[in-house]
């Protein structure tokens, strides 16, 4: 992209098929086309909703279309072979371009022209000669001071044949490496994603308050064992008066070899990481733990009270029947369609005959009266066991993704805002005994700004007296 660089060495024979493939892989057209194709494919992926259950698609598309799209991988296109192939081609393209440009970039960093000779001065756009009545060494001192301001550092000095000297200043040489920084960082990000998908897992686990787990189910449908145990001490959900969620938090302990090694309260946006495994607050819920039921006669007299642990049959006092709390719903639908609140599904096992199932509503205690037996059941108390739902991740590639992202940002910044500037100055005594200074410079990017900088420097050099 810069004028002062040699073009890459000409190929000896362009007909060789390896050369042809290479030319294709390093062609600039391929970059632009690939970037646009990837955009177009990604657009398709946002228009066709991804990874929905198949029956959802039948609501929107003809069965034939569903079959075709499903075969083409359009419902999970970011993981389809052709999308991955495009990404691989991109990676290949970047690698090839980086190899292709390696020599040119290294050559650009080398100091080649240390002196401002005839051919070089012809190629420079900001060239100026200034003459002074001052002695050479006075001019030199001022000049090094002035030029040093813009080009921090000392110049390379070369003695000229006619007794004068040549000075070469440069700045931002390493900005030429920005090409590698931007492009290789994209490869690092890809690598991080690959490492994550091969060596990491994403899973999910529910832990009841007070309970401990040491394994979880992964999204790939496997059981993952942990080297430690996770205990949920407590879970809390808080809500705003409007009912919108305010805070979800779980007090977790990590237990290893029987000892608690970490205790932390996690929230959304504040997960816990231990040995590379991260626990994220993701959901929550509750199941009934035990239920206390009043047994009431038709006439309203209390027959007795029974406490039933969830899922266990217990005797109903004063009756020959047994009761078992077997089901729980947070939002019960009444037969008339209205919301019934919390409901417990119980089975009644009479001494003779099969069991009957019925619902007891926690918030409408007299609901069971309408059933019309010789007694009815009334919920007196319900103890819920809360659980916290945690997303669990292990992603050894993540660090590469962040490293790549930081390098990418750094590379882009350097690529756009730092250029490699070179400045040549020569000093000699001319035929009339005056000090003669010739100055010229070049930059590989943002030449307008550099021209302005040069003009300023030339102006201040002219003012030296």
């Amino acid at each position: 992209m810069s004028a002062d660089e040699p073009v890459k060495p000409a190929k000896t024979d362009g007909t060789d098929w390896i050369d042809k493939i290479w030319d294709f892989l390093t062609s600039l057209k391929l970059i632009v086309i690939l970037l646009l194709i990837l955009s177009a494919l990604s657009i398709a992926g946002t228009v066709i909703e991804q990874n929905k259950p198949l029956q959802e698609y039948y609501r929107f598309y003809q069965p034939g279309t569903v079959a075709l799209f499903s075969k083409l991988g359009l419902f999970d296109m970011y993981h389809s072979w052709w999308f991955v192939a495009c990404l691989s081609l991109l990676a290949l393209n970047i690698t090839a371009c980086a190899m292709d440009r390696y020599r040119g970039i290294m050559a650009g960093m080398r100091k080649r022209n240390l002196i401002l000779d005839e051919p070089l001065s012809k190629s420079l756009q900001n060239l100026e000669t200034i003459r002074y009545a001052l002695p050479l060494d006075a001019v030199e001192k001022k000049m090094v001071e002035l030029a040093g301001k813009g080009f921090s550092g000392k110049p390379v000095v070369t003695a000229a044949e006619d007794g004068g000297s040549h000075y070469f200043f440069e700045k931002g040489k390493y900005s030429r490496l920005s090409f590698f920084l931007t492009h290789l960082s994209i490869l690092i990000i890809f690598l991080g994603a690959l490492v994550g998908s091969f060596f990491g897992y994403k899973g999910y686990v529910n832990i009841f308050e007070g309970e401990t787990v040491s394994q979880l189910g992964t999204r790939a449908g496997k059981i993952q064992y942990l080297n430690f145990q996770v205990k949920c001490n407590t879970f809390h959900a808080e809500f705003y008066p409007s009912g919108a969620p305010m805070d979800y938090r779980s007090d977790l302990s990590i237990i290893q070899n029987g000892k608690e090694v970490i205790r932390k309260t996690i929230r959304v946006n504040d997960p816990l990481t231990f040995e590379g495994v991260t626990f994220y607050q993701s959901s929550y819920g509750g199941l009934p733990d035990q239920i206390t039921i009043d047994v009431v006669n038709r006439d309203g007299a209390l027959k007795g009270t029974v406490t039933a642990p969830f899922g266990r049959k217990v005797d109903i006092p004063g009756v020959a029947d047994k009761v078992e709390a077997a089901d729980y719903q947070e939002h019960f639908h009444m037969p008339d369609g209205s919301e019934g609140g919390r409901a417990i599904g119980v089975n009644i096992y009479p001494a003779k005959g099969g069991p009957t199932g019925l619902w007891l509503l926690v918030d409408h205690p007299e609901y069971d009266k309408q059933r019309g037996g010789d007694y009815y059941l009334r919920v007196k108390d319900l103890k819920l066991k809360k659980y916290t739902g945690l997303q669990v991740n292990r992603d050894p590639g993540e660090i590469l993704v962040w490293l790549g992202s930081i390098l990418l940002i750094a590379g882009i910044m350097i690529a756009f805002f730092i250029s490699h500037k070179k400045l040549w100055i020569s000093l000699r005594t001319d035929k009339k005994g005056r000090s003669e200074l010739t100055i010229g410079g070049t930059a590989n990017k943002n030449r307008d700004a550099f021209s302005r900088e040069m003009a300023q420097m030339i102006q201040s050099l002219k003012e030296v007296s």
Partner: protein
Amino acid sequence: MTNSLLFGIATFVYFFAMVLYVSYLAFRSEMLGKAASLSLLGGVVVETAAIGMRWYESYQMEIGRAPLTNLYESLTFFAWTIALIYLVLERKFKIRTVGAFVAPFPFLIMAYASLNPNDIQPLVPALKSNWLISHVVTCFVGYAAFAVSFGVSILYIFKARAEQFSVKSAGSFWGFLPSSSALDEIGYKTIAIGFPLLTIGIVTGAFWANVAWGTYWSWDPKETWSLIVWLIYAAYLHARITRGWRGKRAAILSIVGFAATIFCYLGVNLILSGLHSYGGAS
């Protein structure tokens, strides 16, 4: 509340600025131009006060959060960044004539924002994050730079056509506009400013998603569209740097890029669904 009143005044001032910029282009009077820039600046000042006030009022309501979290707030912030970044670039690149194509955005966006509910709601857990601010600010400053490039590119297309077909006299309307090559260069430079910012915005967004949901990239429509925008501008930059695309083709890519930006910002929320849909029926 005070903040709504101030936002209302800012909308009105932006309207005024838009009219002045268009008149400046039509009548070519330096006075009008200065008045246009000043009133846009006035709009920014009033809106800055409005945003500050809203922030302060959220603390008074004991909610206490940056005003960047629902559709109304993000629209008003978007209008504010466009006006501010445009003023900075107008000064830097001396492109006041572009104002007629950029100044309508703050007004139209504010007018659209006023159709949305503007009460200060407390934050749901997922939005309680410091990454939110860095993510939103970098994305929007990037978008604003793209908006300026869009205005410049439209002007470029008019100007290039005029240069091709008509005799240019310095006093004419077309002579009044910057030269097409200057517009071309500025269109590129503004993208060179927006692109790194968008990159930072995407990375901070990924980082935040990773902290909140445990995945840095889940191909949800908003993420995918921000990637699309990024790819389009990356294609623009490569076409320009490596293939020497300039002029009309570059200008068209810049316009396409901004259309994708607007879709990424609004279209995704209004038309597609995903993690990011604020406001709406979520």
